[in-house]
């Protein structure tokens, strides 16, 4: 009886069968994200790589020319200067951002009066659009009207105005300083969040164990913060390496290419100069460096043994 009544049921419709299938549902739910990634990430990346192998210009689709663009760049001193600049910019800015950001995070983690006010203030450089803060820095670094030169002159520390952006060394230091100013909040706030996950009782236990303030930092704070530091600095390095806006507003790569980064050079050659293929090749040349940074962080980020749960 029971068997026959089951057999008599009508076959479920295709739609309801699909809605029962885990595979079909999974595919369906993934589709929107996959489409977004394909259209806005994979396609532009693929197009960029392809353009690097062509002699495309603005208004001309170009033909495949193999690695000619890369051969040209290999012998191009400006390209190598931009690589050097990018590495210098990334490494020095990242180190400064890490040191100052960690210091700021440690201060903000103390029980200061107006704590939340200061935390909000620290975020400001991060909230202001980069172009706007870059324009502000442009004025600060202006050869005629620089407030820094003026202030130092008033204090009697210098006797002539500093040529911030006109001199190669000064220009490099200036753009790095601007980048550090802008990047500190990200590092400081992320590390602060990490600091707040360290239980107070660990500090109390270490205090009773006889640790000084430096030993508390060295043996409790720093090791427990390492995973957060790895994530934060990976992102910070990636942001810095691909920086464009600050340089473009402040120096456009000058003076004499002294502050040209790979990103700005790529834009200058590809868009301003119209050599799409060559610009794309420079952009593609950034990929090995970024991959190296990601691999570095991948190994740095690997869960340390003490973070793993369960039995060994």
């Amino acid at each position, binding site marked *: 009886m029971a068997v026959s009544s089951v057999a008599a049921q009508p076959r479920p419709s295709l739609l309801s069968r699909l809605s029962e299938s885990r595979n079909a549902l999974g595919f369906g739910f993934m589709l929107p994200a996959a489409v977004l990634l394909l259209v806005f990430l994979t396609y532009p990346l693929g197009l960029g790589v392809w353009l690097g192998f062509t002699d495309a210009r603005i208004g001309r689709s170009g033909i495949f020319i193999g690695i000619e663009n890369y051969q040209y760049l290999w012998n191009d001193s400006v390209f190598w200067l931009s690589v050097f600049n990018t590495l210098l910019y990334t490494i020095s800015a990242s180190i400064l951002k890490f040191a100052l950001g960690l210091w700021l995070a440690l201060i903000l983690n103390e029980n200061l009066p107006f704590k939340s006010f200061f935390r909000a203030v620290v975020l400001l450089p991060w909230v202001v659009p980069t172009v706007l803060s870059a324009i502000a820095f442009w004025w600060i670094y202006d050869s005629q009207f620089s407030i820094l030169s003026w202030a130092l002159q008033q204090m009697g520390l210098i006797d002539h105005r500093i040529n911030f952006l006109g001199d190669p060394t000064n220009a490099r230091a200036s753009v790095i300083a601007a980048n550090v100013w802008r990047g500190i909040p990200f590092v400081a706030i992320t590390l602060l969040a990490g600091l707040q996950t360290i239980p107070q009782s660990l500090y109390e236990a270490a205090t009773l164990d006889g640790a000084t303030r430096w030993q508390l930092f060295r043996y409790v704070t720093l090791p*427990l913060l390492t995973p957060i530091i790895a994530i934060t600095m990976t992102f910070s390095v990636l942001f810095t390496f691909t920086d464009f806006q600050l340089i473009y507003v402040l120096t456009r790569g000058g003076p004499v290419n002294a502050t040209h980064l790979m990103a700005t050079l790529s834009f200058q050659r590809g868009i301003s100069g119209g050599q799409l293929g060559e610009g794309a090749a420079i952009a593609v040349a950034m990929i090995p460096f970024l991959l190296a940074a990601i691999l570095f962080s991948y190994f740095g980020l690997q869960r340390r043994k003490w*973070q793993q749960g369960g039995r060994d």
Partner: protein
Amino acid sequence: MASVAIGDVYKSFGTVEVLHGVSVNINDGEFVTLVGPSGCGKSTLLRMIAGLEKISRGQIAIGERVVNNVAPKERDVAMVFQNYALYPHMTVAENMAFSLMLKGVSKAESDAGVQRAAEILGLLPLLTRYPRQLSGGQRQRVAMGRAIVRDPQVFLFDEPLSNLDAKLRVQMRAEIKELHQRLKTTTVYVTHDQIEAMTMADKIVVMHDGIVEQIGPPLELYDRPNNLFVASFIGSPAMNLIKGEIGTDGSPSFRGSGGISLPLAAAPAVANAHPVVLGIRPEHLRLSPDQGIPVTVVVVEPTGSEIQVIGRTAGGDEIVANFRERHSFTPGETIRLAAEPGLIHLFDGKTGTRFETRTGW
């Protein structure tokens, strides 16, 4: 090892005073528990002994030395925290050796110290594990190991067993007590669990709302609670407390609601109809064919070793009685419960303090 003298200590957080003058003397080698409901200030007091909280007023001395202005690390105390506070990035051995390393003790000496402590606590097979890889009981033991390694003047325990399950708690309770008997280090142990306090301590300090209610050996607190708070806090199931008044007209008696009247051999020196609270421990009640308080049985809970009866008097007071013998009661049945003579407590209904009239019973 050292004694600890807490003299009239006050503690305020901002404008809120949480300790209102606490004095406790802890002898050298003694195991003292601070017990009380949450918020009574017992953990604050412990943290003040450790030096993690400043002393607002009064003084604390460890041994001969007043430690009010002595840094925590100079006090030579070791603390076991409720959440164990093990360093997650260090192995068990490193956790235990940390304080020795900070002191600059040689590797060999520190290894020997860790080895000795690990042996005492049965941690030898776990020395290379990380805290994440340990069970709750093992972590607890590592936390104690960390304290033992330092061989401090005083051990401080801050509710160390409250994160463990019931069975493990009983086991660790015995282990800590055994450890104390072996090491004989002065120990201050904070708990909200009066059973822990009763079973482990040489001396119990009952705290409530920032003051000390009573200090004494466990059984003294149980047998002669100073006031209603201690009477109701110490003992499980709790002491039966029945409100009523003293009758001094004619022979002295206790008159409760619902027409309960119990003769008293001697009445405290108060006026007729003075409000009092009568206290009887559940195990001090016995079945009586004709005397005592008539009680309607509500719930019967046999635990195997004893039978617990929850009943209600005519006046609506709930009464719990424990019997070692096996009786069979049915809910709704009326039984009469009489108190063992000499085991009745009488408290002033106005102030809650104990009337010392026991000899007259």
